[in-house]
């Protein structure tokens, strides 16, 4: 969510510098995705955590949190509001009829004689700072209230509709033309706002075209409502719509927020339209949000965090956060707090551990070695041990390991709605290995292998989930269950370990055993995506000449493009001479090499070899 630093400053004038604030967010509240300087303002994009989305998706919410967190002053804006006098004195024309339990509160207010026009400059500036476009004063007032206090609000043109608002489930097939001129066909699961003749809006998600506020609008109905978050989320999902209002409603706003939002919205419209006539607020609130309490103790908090927290530290936090609290048996035996209505995330003692922990800062919690009692004796996991056994066995037999995707284009079990065309779960490992063999066979010279031997250990579904082992080369692939592999390939002594579930002394894998030290310093080298060229060269030399002498000359003259070799792959002796055969592999990271240029390199090598009179290129 985008937060303007200057906007925050309205409420917390003593806020620290923007740079410092970023750290406060990160270590005590949530992640900062980006920080952007915009004129004299700084805009934070912060990632409010899901459990705080009901009270922190607003400038006031953030400002209140920061004021408590940093122990600085929070300036309550309400005394500054111009409060309009109600003209109807108990005679409101507006009727509200809630017919669905998916509407938890609905506040409406008729305002007559408004003048739609430009917004005051400060409103435009506020909205533009967080990337919102100014439309007209009515729409802007609604948006400003939402980004300021977190409550989405809406305005209808009273003259285009009846004076009774009905909040109900849609009828199957009922239609609505939306503000952006789309035809929506509704279902019974969709909550709507309607008058006696037709649907006016899809609750919390989209307004309808019919009662749209336009430049000529004179009389309006203000809506401040609270809807069931799940209902909002499901309907929005069906229509594939993400709005700022939907994001707030689906995170379960407190119904208590409505009163403040109506106050702020009315004051704003009054400021914009001083001649407007405000009728009474009609507030239908079938079930008040319950007042909840929570008990917790300093002992439990300290035990969860692994940090000795003091009574004074906790009471200081409770005061800063304006929690009403009492300690009947004295603070040492714990507190009972009244949970503020906006803090729907607080319910259990562990929630207070989070609250105290993040406010103090988790850097205060120092690393401590855990002490497990002697009761705990870890056991070897049989399946994992078998996998290790199979892997080590195959590595030792010269097979290299591959891993393939579990998805396939055929099989017995399939997944719904995959982003890929491979909707099935594989029934074997063999099909994957066949493809791998083809690929790696082409690269055999590059890999320095005369023969490609590979294996995979992994799950297949045929249709039940099974752990398989498959291994093979171009002559063929064998596949079996892990259990079969272990019983076939293990000695009777080794097998005894598995079957008796005894502790198995695991062989370290070859790479660990051979290169533990080197492992920490090794870095992957990405291969070239261009084709390689392999060339062989065989040389006759007197039998007193060793292969490394020949190797040296080839290497010195092979040039920059030789990525592999020279590798000695053949030698034989005849009369008093030896033939050494070497392989070279050439490849560039920038281009496809040509035969002509590699021929030149090979000629250069041959010429150098012929400098020795008794040497002869075969």
């Amino acid at each position: 969510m985008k937060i303007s630093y200057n906007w925050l400053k309205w409420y917390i004038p003593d806020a620290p510098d923007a740079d410092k604030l970023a750290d406060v967010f990160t270590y005590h509240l949530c992640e900062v995705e980006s920080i952007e300087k915009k004129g004299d303002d700084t805009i934070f994009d912060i990632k409010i955590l899901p459990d705080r989305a009901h009270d922190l998706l607003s400038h006031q919410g953030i400002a209140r949190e920061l004021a408590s967190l940093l122990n600085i002053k929070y300036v309550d804006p309400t005394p500054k509001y111009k409060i309009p006098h109600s003209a109807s004195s108990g005679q409101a024309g507006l009727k509200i009829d809630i017919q669905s339990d998916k509407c938890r509160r609905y506040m409406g207010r008729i305002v007559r004689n408004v003048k739609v026009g430009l917004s005051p400059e400060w409103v435009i500036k506020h909205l533009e700072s967080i990337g919102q476009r100014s439309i007209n004063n009515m729409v802007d007032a609604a948006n400003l209230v939402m980004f300021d206090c977190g409550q989405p609000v809406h305005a209808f043109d009273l003259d285009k509709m009846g004076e009774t608002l009905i909040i109900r489930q849609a009828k199957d097939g009922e239609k609505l033309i939306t503000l952006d001129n789309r035809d929506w066909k509704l279902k019974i699961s969709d909550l709507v706002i309607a008058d006696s003749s037709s649907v006016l809006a899809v609750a919390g998600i989209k307004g309808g075209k019919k009662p749209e506020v336009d430049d000529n609008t004179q009389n309006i109905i203000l809506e401040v409502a609270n809807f069931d978050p799940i209902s909002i989320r499901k309907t929005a999902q069906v229509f594939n719509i993400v709005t700022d209002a939907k994001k707030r409603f689906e995170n379960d706003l407190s119904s208590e927020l409505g009163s403040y939002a109506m106050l702020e919205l009315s004051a704003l419209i009054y400021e914009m339209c001083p001649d407007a006539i405000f009728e009474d607020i009609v507030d239908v609130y079938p079930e008040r949000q319950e007042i909840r309490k929570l008990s917790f103790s300093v002992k439990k908090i300290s035990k969860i965090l692994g940090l000795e927290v003091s009574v004074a530290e906790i009471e200081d936090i409770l005061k800063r956060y304006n929690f009403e609290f009492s300690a009947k048996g004295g603070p040492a035996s714990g507190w009972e707090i009244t949970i503020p209505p906006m803090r729907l995330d607080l319910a259990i003692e562990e929630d207070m551990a989070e609250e105290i922990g993040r406010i103090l800062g988790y850097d205060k919690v120092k690393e401590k070695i855990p002490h497990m009692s002697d009761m705990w004796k870890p056991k070897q996991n049989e399946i994992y041990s078998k996998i290790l056994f199979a892997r080590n066995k195959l590595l030792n037999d010269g097979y290299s390991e591959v891993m393939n995707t579990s998805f396939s284009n055929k099989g017995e079990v399939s997944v719904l709605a995959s982003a890929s065309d491979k909707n099935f779960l594989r029934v074997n490992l063999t099909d994957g290995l066949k493809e791998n063999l083809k690929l790696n066979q082409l690269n055999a010279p590059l890999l320095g292998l005369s023969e490609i031997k590979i294996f995979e250990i992994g799950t297949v579904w045929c249709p039940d989930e099974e752990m398989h082992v498959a291994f093979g080369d171009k002559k063929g692939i064998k596949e079996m269950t892990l259990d079969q592999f272990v019983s076939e390939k293990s000695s009777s002594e080794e097998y005894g370990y598995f079957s008796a579930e005894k502790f198995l002394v695991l062989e370290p894998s070859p790479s660990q055993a051979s290169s533990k030290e080197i492992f920490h310093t090794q870095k992957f080298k990405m291969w070239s995506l261009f084709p390689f060229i392999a060339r062989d060269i065989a040389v006759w030399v007197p039998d007193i000449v060793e292969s490394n002498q020949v190797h040296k000359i080839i290497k010195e003259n092979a040039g920059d493009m030789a990525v592999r070799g020279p590798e000695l792959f053949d030698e034989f002796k005849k009369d008093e001479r030896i033939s050494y055969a070497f392989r070279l592999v050439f490849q560039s990271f920038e281009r496809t090499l040509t035969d002509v240029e590699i021929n030149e390199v090979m000629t250069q090598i041959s010429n150098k070899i012929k400098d020795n009179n008794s040497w002869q290129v075969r």
Partner: protein
Amino acid sequence: MTEEIKKGKEHPLSIVINDAVKIFTDLGFEVAVGPELEDIWHNFFALNFPKDHPALDMQDTFYIKGQEGKVLRTHTSNVQIRYMEKFSKEGKEPPFAIIVPGKVFRNEATDAGHEMQFYQLEGLMVGDDISVANMKWVLLEFFKKILGKNVEIRVRPSFFPFVEPGFEVDIKHNGKWMELVGAGMVHPNVLENCGIDSRKYQGFAFGLGLDRIAMIKLSIPDIRLFYQGDLRLNQF
């Protein structure tokens, strides 16, 4: 004679997984495993996900066709539940400490940093007074051993349904902070769902992406290289 290798070459992920498992088993953790095709109780609800949680949406999770309530596990946390259920059914009492290396699945578009399948390592330690301080020690110890002794750790507030408090754990390696672990104190509802008394016992859980660790450790630029069966990857 020739340079041809007698032994086969291990997949880099296996090397990193083995390393990780070795480090944790040396610290007293037990390895646990579980199914990749899982029911939604073990994958979601026992882990305190509300019935309408967005993670349950089809766009994030692979549901199995024709098998009501079955998914490809989205994390190895399902094994937390399976292990604890069995543990308490056998009448045992904490402490215990497990790690779960295993394959997990997410229904998302792939790129250099994302795959539809990857390996996760789940950790869980429960006892009388296993705390956030213990979690920090265990994770720091692990990263010192796997990435080098100069790493630093920091813990930030985060949220996951199955923990409270929840954390994001960052590791500083070669001068750069990286977000590598999701963690937290096991939510009492999760312990209770598995028959463990949450008034008596507490502990931490964490999950980390092994592909990511392998990529960092070995400087491998693209996660998709792990699952192409190309032996040019097996350089170690």
